[in-house]
C-alpha cells in the first residue's frame, strides 16, 4: 500500500466500531489494520452485515420444515412447491435511503431484493411492498405525501421497467414513522428445484468474474466518514468533495433487466460454480461471504474492476455500493464462454480475481498487496451482543391526535364512513394503479380482488394449474401495544389472508424494523416480538426461510413503532378456485366465522379517537385461530364459498363494506343481541361493529355450503347479499344504511390526498 499513516482507533470509532471491537480487529490482524482492512472490517462488523444485536434472537426462530429447500443464510430462502419447482422469496428493507431520497431509495430497494432472487437461480415473478409513513394530513403531511409519492413511483419505475409484476403490499400511516419511514420490498421467484444455486465459492484456481454495471463512488455510505478523514489527510485530491457525494445509490432497471437475463442464461447453460449479488458493502461483503461459505480464500485485484470514475482508492472500490452488479465463480476453461454471454446481453464482465486456498481475503492493486484479512475473522468473528431487554415503565409513544373526520357524537354510520376514509383503511387504488400487476401472465388475483395475491403455476400433466398465494402484513400500532401478541397477530393475519385465497402456508420471511436495540425498552420490543414470531410460525408450520433486520430506526421524536413485517407464501391446489373477497351473488348468505373476540383496544377507531395505546393486547388462542383458518381454507378450495375475507382494521363493519365494494353488491345484515353476546361484547354494538382481533372471517355462499362450514367451525349467519346498499341493524345502536356510492366515496379518500 502507498505510504500513508495507519488509521487510528478514532477512525475506527467514527466508522461505528467500538473501542473493544477495534482492539479485537488488531488482535485478529496481528497489528493495527490499514485503511482498506479497517474499511472492510467496519462494514462486515456492522449491525447491517453481522446482525450483532439480533443474531442470538434470530437463532431461536424455526427455520426447518418439510417444504424448506433453502433456509436462512443464502441470498434468499426457498420452499418446494411441487412439480419439481421451488419458490424463492425474501423481504428486505431500504428505510434510510428512502427517507433521504424516496424515489431512488425505494427503486434500489426493489432492485436489491430482485438480485437476491435471481442470485439463487430463480426468475423473479412478483414484488410486494410494505410501507410506513407519518400522518398524511396536518403538520408533516406535506412531507409524508412527498415521501409516499416518491416511494411508490420508485417501486413502480423499477418493477414495471424490469417486467416483474407488483402484485400486493400494504401501507400504514402513523406518527412514529414521520421521521423514519419504512420501505420494505419482498420478491418471489420460481426455479427448477434442483437448479437452485448457492453462493459458496469453491475450487482453488477458479476465476472471480464481476459483471453488470461499473463501479463508482455512489453509495459509499458507511465509509463516508473514513473517506473524508483519510482523503483530507492523504490530500490525494481524488475526492475533496466526498462529503457532498450522495450516499443513496441510483438504480438503473434497464441494466438490471439485462443482468437478470444474463445471469439466468449463464446458470441455465451451467457455466457458473456459484453466484452472489452485490448489495450492502458491495464487493467486500460478497467476496467475504462467498469465501466464508466455501471455506476458501479469495484474491481480488481492484485495478481489474471496471470503474465509472477515475482514481478511486482501493478501499472505495471494495466498499462501493454501485447497483446492478453480480459476482460469480467460474472454472478457468469456461471464462471465455461467460464473457461472451455477457457481451450478448450488453453487460460488462471482468475477471477480477481468483479463489485461493489461503483462507484469507487478499486485496491487491496491480501487483501490490493492499489488504489481507482472515476470512473467518471478517465474517464470523464479529462479537455478538446480548440484549438488555426491559419493559418500559412509561408509555413509549404519545397518544395520536384525534381525527377531525370523526364527530364527537358520531352515529355508527358516520363512524363507519370515517373509518373507511381513514388513511390506514382507504382504498390503495391510487397507489397500486401505478404498478404493472399482470406482466408474465401469472396473476390470478389482482390487488383488491382477494386478501392475498394469487399467482398461477405452470399446468401439470393433467392440465391442472396450482397457484401460489402471498401476503405481507404487520400492524405496528398493535405490536407497539404488545410486542409479543402483536407479532403473533401479524403472522396470523398473513395466514388468514392466505386461507381466504384457499392457500396453506409453506414458509415465511420477515423484516424486523425496530429502533435502537442498545436501549432496554427497544431490546424488550425486539425480543418479545421475536418470541411471538417464533411461536406463531411454529404453530402454523410456516418456518422462516430468510429475512432481514433493520435497527436504529429512530427520529428526533423517538423510535418507530416496532414493525416486524411478515411475508408469507402458500400453495393452493387449483388456481381456478382461488378465493375472492368481494360478494359475488345476490341471495348468498353472509356469515361470521371463527373465534373472533373483538375489542376496541388498539383499534383503528381508538386511534381516530386519539386514544393512547393500551398496555397489552388480549390473549390469543392460536390453535383455535389455526383451526378456523383451516376450515375456511378447505371451504374455499372446495369452491363452496362465493367470497372470503378476514376481519382486520376497522372490524366487522369495515370488512362488510369492503366485501360490498369489491363485489359491487350490497348486503342486509342484522347483528342481534345473540351475536353480540357470542362475540363477548353483549350490549356493546360499537365493539361488535368496529372492534378488532384475530380469528374472524366474513364468508358468503349458499345456505347449504355455510351449513357444512358451520359443522367444522363456529359460524353465525348475519344476513344476505343483495341490493345496492349496505344495511346493518345493530342491536341497541340503531342502523347503518349506506349506498355503495357512499361507501365508495368514503373509501376513495386516498385519491384526494395523493391525486
Amino acid at each position: 500500500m502507498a505510504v500513508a499513516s495507519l488509521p487510528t482507533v478514532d477512525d475506527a470509532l467514527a466508522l461505528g466500531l467500538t473501542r473493544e471491537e477495534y482492539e479485537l480487529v488488531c488482535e485478529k490482524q496481528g497489528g493495527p489494520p490499514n485503511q482498506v482492512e479497517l474499511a472492510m472490517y467496519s462494514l462486515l462488523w456492522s449491525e447491517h452485515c453481522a446482525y450483532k444485536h439480533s443474531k442470538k434472537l434470530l437463532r431461536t426462530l424455526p427455520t426447518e420444515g418439510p417444504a424448506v429447500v433453502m433456509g436462512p443464510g443464502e441470498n434468499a430462502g426457498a420452499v418446494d412447491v411441487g412439480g419439481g419447482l421451488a419458490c424463492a422469496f425474501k423481504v428486505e428493507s431500504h428505510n434510510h435511503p428512502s427517507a433521504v431520497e424516496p424515489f431512488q431509495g425505494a427503486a434500489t430497494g426493489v432492485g436489491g431484493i430482485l438480485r437476491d432472487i435471481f442470485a439463487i437461480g430463480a426468475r423473479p415473478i412478483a414484488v410486494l411492498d410494505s410501507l410506513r409513513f407519518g400522518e398524511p394530513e396536518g403538520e408533516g403531511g406535506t412531507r409524508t405525501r412527498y415521501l409516499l409519492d416518491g416511494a411508490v413511483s420508485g417501486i413502480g419505475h423499477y418493477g414495471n421497467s424490469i417486467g416483474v409484476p407488483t402484485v400486493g403490499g400494504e401501507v400504514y400511516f402513523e406518527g412514529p414513522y414521520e421521521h423514519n419511514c419504512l420501505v420494505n420490498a419482498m420478491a418471489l421467484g420460481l426455479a427448477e428445484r434442483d437448479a437452485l444455486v448457492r453462493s459458496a465459492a469453491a475450487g482453488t484456481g477458479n476465476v472471480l468474474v464481476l459483471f453488470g454495471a461499473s463501479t463508482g463512488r455512489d453509495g459509499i455510505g458507511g465509509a463516508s466518514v473514513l473517506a473524508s478523514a483519510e482523503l483530507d489527510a492523504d490530500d490525494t485530491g481524488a475526492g475533496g468533495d466526498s462529503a457532498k457525494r450522495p450516499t443513496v445509490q441510483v438504480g438503473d432497471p434497464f441494466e438490471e433487466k439485462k443482468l437478470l437475463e444474463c445471469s439466468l442464461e449463464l446458470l441455465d447453460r451451467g457455466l457458473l460454480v456459484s453466484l452472489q449479488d452485490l448489495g450492502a458493502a458491495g464487493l467486500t461483503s460478497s467476496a467475504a461471504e462467498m469465501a466464508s461459505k466455501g471455506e476458501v480464500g479469495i484474491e481480488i485485484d481492484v485495478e481489474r474492476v471496471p470503474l465509472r470514475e477515475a482514481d478511486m482508492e482501493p478501499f472505495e472500490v471494495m466498499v462501493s455500493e454501485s447497483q446492478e452488479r453480480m459476482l460469480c465463480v467460474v472454472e478457468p476453461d469456461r471464462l471465455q464462454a461467460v464473457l461472451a454471454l455477457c457481451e450478448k446481453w450488453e453487460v460488462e464482465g471482468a475477471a477480477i480475481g481468483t479463489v485461493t486456498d489461503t483462507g484469507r481475503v487478499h486485496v491487491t492493486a496491480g501487483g501490490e498487496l493492499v489488504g489481507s484479512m482472515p476470512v473467518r475473522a471478517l465474517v464470523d468473528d464479529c462479537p455478538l451482543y446480548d440484549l438488555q431487554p426491559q419493559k418500559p415503565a412509561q408509555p413509549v409513544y404519545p397518544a395520536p391526535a384525534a381525527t377531525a373526520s370523526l364527530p364527537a357524537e358520531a352515529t355508527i354510520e358516520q363512524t363507519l364512513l370515517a373509518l373507511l376514509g381513514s388513511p390506514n383503511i382507504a382504498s390503495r387504488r391510487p397507489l397500486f394503479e401505478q404498478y404493472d400487476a399482470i406482466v408474465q401472465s401469472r396473476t390470478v388475483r389482482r390487488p383488491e380482488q382477494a386478501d392475498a395475491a394469487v399467482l398461477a403455476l405452470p399446468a401439470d400433466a393433467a392440465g391442472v394449474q396450482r397457484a401460489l398465494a402471498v401476503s405481507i402484513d404487520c400492524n405496528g400500532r398493535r405490536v407497539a401495544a404488545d410486542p409479543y401478541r402483536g407479532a403473533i397477530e401479524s403472522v396470523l393475519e398473513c395466514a388468514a389472508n392466505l386461507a381466504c385465497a384457499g392457500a396453506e402456508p409453506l414458509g415465511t420471511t420477515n423484516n424486523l424494523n425496530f429502533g435502537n436495540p442498545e436501549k432496554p425498552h427497544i431490546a424488550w420490543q425486539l425480543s418479545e416480538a421475536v418470541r411471538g414470531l417464533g411461536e406463531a410460525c411454529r404453530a402454523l408450520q410456516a418456518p422462516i426461510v430468510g429475512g432481514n433486520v433493520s435497527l436504529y430506526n429512530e427520529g428526533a421524536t423517538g423510535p418507530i413503532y416496532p414493525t416486524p413485517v411478515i411475508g408469507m407464501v402458500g400453495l393452493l391446489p387449483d388456481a381456478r378456485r382461488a378465493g375472492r373477497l368481494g360478494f359475488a351473488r345476490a341471495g348468498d348468505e353472509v356469515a361470521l366465522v371463527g373465534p373472533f373476540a373483538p375489542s376496541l383496544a388498539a383499534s383503528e377507531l381508538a386511534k381516530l379517537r386519539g386514544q393512547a395505546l393500551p398496555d397489552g393486547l388480549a390473549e390469543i388462542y392460536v390453535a383455535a385461530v389455526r383451526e378456523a383458518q383451516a376450515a375456511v381454507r378447505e371451504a374455499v378450495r372446495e369452491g363452496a364459498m362465493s367470497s372470503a375475507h378476514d376481519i382486520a382494521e376497522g372490524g366487522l363493519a369495515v370488512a362488510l363494506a369492503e366485501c360490498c365494494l369489491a363485489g359491487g353488491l350490497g348486503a342486509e345484515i342484522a347483528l342481534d343481541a345473540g351475536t353480540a353476546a357470542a362475540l363477548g361484547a353483549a350490549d356493546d354494538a360499537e365493539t361488535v361493529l368496529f372492534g378488532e382481533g384475530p380469528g374472524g372471517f366474513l364468508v358468503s355462499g349458499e345456505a347449504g355450503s355455510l351449513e357444512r362450514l358451520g359443522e367444522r367451525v363456529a359460524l353465525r349467519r348475519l344476513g344476505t347479499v343483495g341490493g345496492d346498499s349496505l344495511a346493518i341493524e345493530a342491536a341497541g345502536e340503531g342502523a347503518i344504511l349506506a349506498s355503495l356510492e357512499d361507501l365508495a366515496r368514503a373509501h376513495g379518500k386516498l385519491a384526494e390526498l395523493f391525486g
Partner: protein
Amino acid sequence: MKFGVLQFPGSCDEVDALEAARRVGEAELIWHGERDLKGADAIVVPGGFSYGDYLRAGAIARFAPAMESVIEFAREGGPVLGICNGFQVLCEARLLPGALLPNRNLRFTFRQVALEVLSSGGTFTRACALDERLSIPAKHAWGRYYADEQTLAAMDDSGQIVLRYAPGENFNGSLHDIAGVCNEAGNVFGLMPHPEHAVDDLTGSSTDGLKIYDSIKMTIEA
C-alpha cells in the same frame, strides 16, 4: 401460420405475446440483433421498455437490425402488430402516423379498460363486430396518442382509427380517445392496451384480446 415476436433488451411482455400467439398458431422470438424474420407470416413488436426507454420510448429500438427487416416486411404488406412499447416503436419508425406522449396524469397507470371497435373487418379486427366492446388491460406511462388535426381527419376518413377508449375510460388523455390505429394500407396496427394479457379467463379478466390474434390468423389464412 407463424408469428415472429421481437425481443429487445428491456422487452417485458414478449413471452406473454409469444404465448398468446401460440394459442392461435406457431410463434417464435426474434432477437433484436438479427435480420432474419424466420419465415414469420406476421410480426408482433411487444411491450416493455426496449433499451430502457432511454432517449424516448421506442426511439432506439426503431434502429435495431431486426426492425430494419420489419420495416421492409411491412412495406411489402406483411401484417405487423405493435403493442404498447411496440406501438411507440412503430410510430418512431414512421410505420404509423402520430406519436405517444406522457399520460395526462404523468404517472404509469394500470387499468382494465373498455375499448370500442371503430373499424372491423380489417387485418386486426376481422374477428370483431363493428362497435363491439373489448375489455383489455392497459399499462403505460407514455400512452397519450397525438397527431395533428389534419392527420387525424385523414385517418378518420380512411378508417385508420381502429380502437377507441369507451366513454370515461381514456385515462391517458389520447386525442379523440384513440387507443389503436393502423396505417393507410391497413397492414400495420398499433395499440396501447395489451391484447396478450386478455387471452385466458384465469389471468386475463377476459379473453377479448384473443380476437386480435384470431383476426391476424384469419387474414393470413384467408
